[in-house]
C-alpha cells in the first residue's frame, strides 16, 4: 500500500483508485441494503 497511488483523471475530476473503491462500496452497500431480503420477515410475531 505504500506504492505510488493510481489516479483516475477526467477533466477537472480526479480520484485515487482507493477512494473510488471506498465510494463505490458505499453505494454498493446502500443498494444491497435496499434490495437484499431481510431475514425473518415472514409473519411478524407478537401481534399488536
Amino acid at each position, binding site marked *: 500500500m505504500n506504492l505510488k497511488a493510481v489516479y483516475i483523471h477526467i477533466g477537472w475530476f480526479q480520484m485515487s483508485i482507493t477512494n473510488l473503491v*471506498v465510494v463505490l*462500496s*458505499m453505494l454498493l*452497500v*446502500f443498494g*444491497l*441494503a*435496499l434490495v*437484499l431480503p*431481510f431475514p425473518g*420477515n415472514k409473519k*411478524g410475531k*407478537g401481534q399488536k
Partner: protein
Amino acid sequence: MSTGIEKEMWTTKLRKGWQKNLPVEKLLPDTQPAYVASWIYMFGVATLASLGVIIASGLWLSFEGASWYHFSSVGHFVNSIHFWAVQFFFIFMVVHLWGKFWMAAWRGKRMMTWVTGALAFVGSIATAFTGYLIQTNFDSQWISYEAKDGFNSVGIGSKFTVTNFGQMILLHVAFLPVIIGVITLIHVLLVRSKGVVPPIDAFNKELGERK
C-alpha cells in the same frame, strides 16, 4: 401522590419527564414495529459499533503516546485498526444518512433526531481531521500546512491553530470526543424515545387517502 412542593422540585420534574418520555421499556425494547425489516436499519448500529472500535483503539494509542506506532509493530497494528475503523465509521454513517433521508425520517416530530445526527456527522469530520493532524508523519505536516490557510482565511485560525500539535492532540483526544459522545448519546436517546419513524404511506388508510 405528590404534594405541591414536590411538583415544583427540579429533581421531581426531571424524574417524571424521564419516566414519561423514556421509560426503560422504551430505552431497551424487545420488539420493534413490523416495518423495521430492512438491512438499511443496521447502519445506525454499525456506525455506533465502529465508533466503539475507534474509541477502544484510540484509548490504547493515547496511553502509549502519539509516536508509539512509528517504532512498535503492535503500535502500528493498533494505529491501523483506528485508521480502518474510521473508514468504516464514515461509510456506515453516510449510508445511514442516505437511508434516513429517503425515509424522510424527520417526520412525526423527529426533527431534532435529524439535527443531532447531522451535527454528529459534521462534528465527526472535524474530529477525524484533527486525528490526521496528530499522526506525527509527513501527512500531518502537510495537512497542517495546507489547512491553516482555510482556517486563517475566516479568522478561525487565530484560535484554532492546526499547526499547533499540542492543541490538536488535546482537542482530538479530549474535547472533540466528548462533544461527539454527547451528541451521539442525545441522538440515540431521541431515537429510542420517539421510536423508529413509520413508513411514509403507513397512515394513508386512516387519513382516507389512496397512496
